[in-house]
């Protein structure tokens, strides 16, 4: 299994939630905070998750993100 991680730019994010549904590992959720433009941005939650819910760097979240708010890295 490849290992990866993502970075979400919460000021670019418009809280559309598409990445939340796209992530096969369910590693993203919508924050309850508002960003400056008034949206609830997406949050990356890997650290909170258990071992078998690791980010693979598959980039599906980034591919569907309309606002290019997600950068994906792989080790």
């Amino acid at each position, binding site marked *: 299994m490849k290992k*990866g*991680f993502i970075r979400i730019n919460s000021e*670019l994010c*418009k*809280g*559309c*939630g*598409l990445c*939340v*549904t*796209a992530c096969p590992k369910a590693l993203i959720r919508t924050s309850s905070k508002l960003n400056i433009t008034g*949206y609830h941005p997406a949050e990356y939650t890997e650290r909170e998750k258990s071992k078998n819910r690791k980010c693979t*760097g598959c*980039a*599906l979240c*980034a*591919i*569907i*993100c*309309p*606002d*290019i708010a*997600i*950068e*994906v*890295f*792989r*080790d």
Partner: protein
Amino acid sequence: MTNTMPKQVFKRPQSLKENVFHYCPGCGHSIIHRLIAEVIDEFGIRDRTVGVPPAGCAVLAYNYIDVDMGEAPHGRAVAVATGIKRVRPDLIVFTYQGDGDLAAIGTAEAIHAANRGERLSVIFVNNAVYGMTGGQMAPTTVLGQITTTTPGGRSALRDGFPLDLSQMLAVARGSVYIERTAVTSPKNIIKTKKAIKKAFQVQMDGLGFALVEILSPCPINWKLSPVESCRWVEEEVVKSYPLGVIKDTTSTQDLVNKVKKGKRRKT
């Protein structure tokens, strides 16, 4: 095993400016912009590509896609692009048109450019609605869909049927490649990028008219969440507009055009 630096596997394409998209949350336009920029990067043609965006939510595409751009009046993008391409056949010219633009006011221009086999790549963003002007019915609006001018839902009898322009363009003998895709899931997005890439390739090969129709969510005007919007496309909209290749004569055209290529200037 040695420890390596993490490698960035997804980032902003080079041909995309840094500006923040003005589109609504979950809008498909910015996804499509990114795909175009990626294709331009991959072909390395940023310095010989010209884009033609007409009125529509994406009229500001020039704020994002970092190539020469010329604005067209609503509906006339292919005509403007034809003017550019005919006098500068060495340039790669694409248009970026909404469904209101291409399938309503620009119907005649679309059909005749296809019929003349203009060497253009048309990116046709079908969101089943007039986005920019606030969600009126488009020719592509599906039956029963509520818009600001079909308050009771689109009725075939009063408002006509969902218009399948791509099928009509396929009848034109000058069109060589037409495919319909969607940007509603990573898988569909990847397919869309392939299609865009092919539409550019067709132009670079001088084969004829190429068009990608992309079903694209407009959550704000559909009054659905972005996630619901994608689902609605995949479950409902595709019934009127099935995904897939509608026409592809590139292999036969290839032969025909080998002979003719380079002659356009003279004719």
